[in-house]
């Protein structure tokens, strides 16, 4: 958690003072896609090799999925309503 906040803050400072060469801003998009791909891959590898998670899938997987689905849909509906009311220009 601390590492995340330090990384983000450091990035903001570096960006604000233009400390990086111009080429960085041209490759930033491609670079992010590549890192993001590897990140999601390693995250899923560690979830898929977690025996507590996989071992419980059969017994409680359905209940867990229904609860996750409910929370996701609920938050999407409320935030969508909020967006339509107060964030019209952000859509």
């Amino acid at each position, binding site marked *: 958690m601390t590492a995340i906040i330090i990384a983000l803050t450091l*990035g903001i400072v570096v960006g604000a003072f233009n400390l990086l060469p111009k080429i960085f801003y041209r490759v930033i998009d491609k670079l992010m896609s590549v890192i993001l791909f590897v990140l999601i891959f390693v995250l899923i590898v560690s979830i898929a090799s977690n025996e507590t998670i996989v071992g419980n899938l059969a017994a409680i997987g359905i209940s867990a999925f229904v609860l996750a689905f409910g929370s996701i849909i609920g938050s999407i*509906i409320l935030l969508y309503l909020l967006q339509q009311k107060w964030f019209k220009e952000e859509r």
Partner: protein
Amino acid sequence: MMVLIVCALCLGTLVGRLGWLNDYLPLVDNLSTGLLCALLFVVGVGLGNNKAIWRKLLRLGWRVAMIPLAVAAGSLLGALLSGFFLQMPFQDSLSVGAGFGWYSLSGLMLKELGNVQLGAIALLANCFREIVAMLLIPLIAKYLGKITAIAPGGATCMDTTMPVISKCCGESTALLGFISGSVLTALVPILVPIMYSLGR
């Protein structure tokens, strides 16, 4: 973007299940923290470099605080309704929903509170939430709007799903997501035990 995420999910599941990287799991965990920091650094550079984003944040003012509140209320209501459907005690479904996608903490807390089974459900449900969020963010950004794309990630918007939001909705939405994710992250350790002990 969507294709990339689906490929990473499938490949990760395959490699994880086949156990090809099992000998390197501690390394894999360190790698994911390192990559996450690298990504957040890159997102940060974009944020620091774009002064307009900060002016926009000031203009939005108090409305920014409404985002995590809407996500929290929606998650809890949705979990509550799902819980009725599953015929679970309302405290149980609410406390799983109060994990907001932070599966390691919510799972652990409920286990410590004395309900091992519910801890496992919270772990799985919030894990699903993180995975499903990665798939939904590109779709929501396209069809429902950028702000709404912050919803599925919940607390994970401050770390794992933030780069996805940044990629699909732009840096300014990623900043709003980070703020919302931080608030929700702070709420998880408070709300999970409160929800669990409601009326008990």
